């Protein structure tokens, strides 16, 4: 098992996760010691197969596990240098760390615009500032502006995803935990969303922790990446290095020796247990 690289200087890291263990329902051990860190102003990707524990890691960070009868039993989590395991989710949002949950989770009965406004719940800087940010979100996602008065429950999957991201932006976060933003989005939109991520990162210095299945895109935008397999970090490194890694190429990017494999010709490989852990 590859141990994660020793974490660099603490004040550089906006988020640090040290060796956490998560148990659901008192019995199901899901994370078996995960450590990772996100530098201030960085974009870090968290990759891994289904069920590897990406979502669990993000929820552990944002303290949303309680509602699912899960708990962090070991390890520590530091955000902006301070321990945050015992904070409530809203304290964390107030400190600037917000999660965009997997699978959209919009407020179905609220209009798209009200959905966005709920994102500003923790803000104290007045109506005009909030209005300005709303307009900003609308410039990022023009489609939302068109549907601003529809009930979110009736909008399409992609529109809901945009709403969820837009809603997070409304809290003016320092750091966004983005869980599978590309799921179910049209290719064009995937690019757009990642472009927005890049823009926010560059223009406003927002840090990102991205959990993604779409390794290809994720590694193009992220600077650093961690690969998670059944609750453990099995590989990490600079995005560029990961892209060059043979295993990553083979199993995550789908490029074998002779370029991209066709989905039509896939054979049934037994490819479990590749990284000896």
């Amino acid at each position, binding site marked *: 098992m590859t141990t994660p690289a020793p974490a660099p200087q603490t004040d550089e890291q906006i988020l640090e996760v040290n060796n956490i263990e998560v148990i659901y329902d008192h019995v199901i051990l899901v994370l078996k010691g995960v450590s990772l860190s996100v530098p201030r102003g960085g974009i870090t990707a968290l990759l891994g197969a289904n069920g590897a524990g990406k979502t669990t890691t993000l929820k552990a960070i*944002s303290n*949303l596990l*309680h*509602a*699912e009868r899960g708990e962090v039993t070991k390890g520590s989590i530091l955000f902006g240098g301070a321990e945050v395991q015992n904070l*409530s*989710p*809203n304290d*964390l*949002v*107030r400190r600037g760390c*917000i*999660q*965009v*949950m997997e699978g959209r*989770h*919009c*407020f*179905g*009965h*609220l209009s798209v615009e*009200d*959905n966005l*406004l*709920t*994102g*500003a*719940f*923790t803000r104290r800087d007045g109506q005009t500032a909030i209005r300005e940010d709303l307009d900003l979100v609308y410039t990022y996602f023009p489609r939302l502006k068109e549907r601003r008065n529809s*009930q979110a*429950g*009736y909008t399409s999957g992609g529109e809901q995803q945009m709403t*969820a991201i837009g*809603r*997070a932006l409304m*809290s003016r976060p320092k750091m966004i935990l983005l869980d599978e933003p590309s799921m179910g989005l049209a290719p064009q939109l995937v690019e757009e969303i990642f472009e927005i991520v890049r823009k926010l990162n560059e223009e406003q210095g927002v840090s990102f922790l991205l959990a993604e299945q779409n390794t290809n895109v994720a590694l193009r935008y992220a600077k650093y990446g961690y690969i998670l397999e059944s609750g453990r970090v099995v590989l990490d490194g600079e995005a560029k290095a990961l892209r060059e890694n043979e295993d990553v190429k083979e199993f995550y990017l789908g490029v074998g020796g002779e370029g991209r494999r066709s989905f039509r010709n896939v054979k049934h490989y037994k490819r479990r247990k590749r990284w000896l852990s």
Partner: protein
Amino acid sequence: MEFLNDVLVQPFADMAAAPDFLLQVLWEGLVGGVLYALIALGFVLIYKSSRIFNFAQGIMVVFAALTLVGLYEKGVPALLALPLTLAVMLVLAMTIERVVLRPLVNQPDIILFMATIGITLFLIGFGELIFGGENKVMITEQLFIPTGSIVFEPFGGFVSIEEKDLTAVIGAMVLVAALLVFLNKSKIGRAIRALGDDHQAALSVGISLSTIWVIVWFIAGVIALATGIVWGARAGVSFALEVIAFKALPVLMLGGLESVMGAIIGGLAIGILEKLFEIYWGQPLLGGNTEAWFAYMLALLVLLVRPQGLFGEKIIERV
């Protein structure tokens, strides 16, 4: 034939024959309706913010009223007892949030519903332990609620309107208007509506469940107190009041579980219609006591046409 006459003609003939009596019936229905609406309001608020079907609303009414009267009987001046009671309701809201709701976050609706029945039982036991079971007199006069009655004499008969009922009607209107503004215009109002849709998502955007729930349960407590004062002024305060929770349920069905407007309109409609039905059809034809079920049947019929009630949120069904 005679049957048709009894059902379709005679009742209306009776109404026309004694218009003053009809007016009185309508007024009684209206007052009853306002009370139902008030209880329903408490339900709606809590349902909206947590999808909890708070069965304990009925007992909260009793509890609030008993606390008020109990404090007064212990020698606390009425005008001090009122804020003290509010404080008690706040403590109650906080306790419920801490002990019951927080550990049950994200559980299925029915579990939370059961939990509120648990709360109901607890409060019944607790309340009787402290206040005893006897019927108490509401401290109407001490709270400066007028107690006289106004008598009109239209159509050669008379219609008598209790001043305290009138106060209740006006008070309820004000309360509702305030609530509507609060829910639709304020940030907390929006958060309350968001919470109802998705607890997790609400948590993730930084809405504090605990705070909102305490606020909501406290408001429900205030509404309960208002209901308790009004209803207690009519019939005294005792644990027999707890059954009024059941009068509010059809109102909710009719008006829609999440709608403040619905609670009001549903309450008034049910109050008036059930009284008319009881007086002009129920008593002469069915042996009376139809109020026990009329509202439910009416609401059921409405639901068959609109499954989410008149003003409820449409159930979103997508795949």
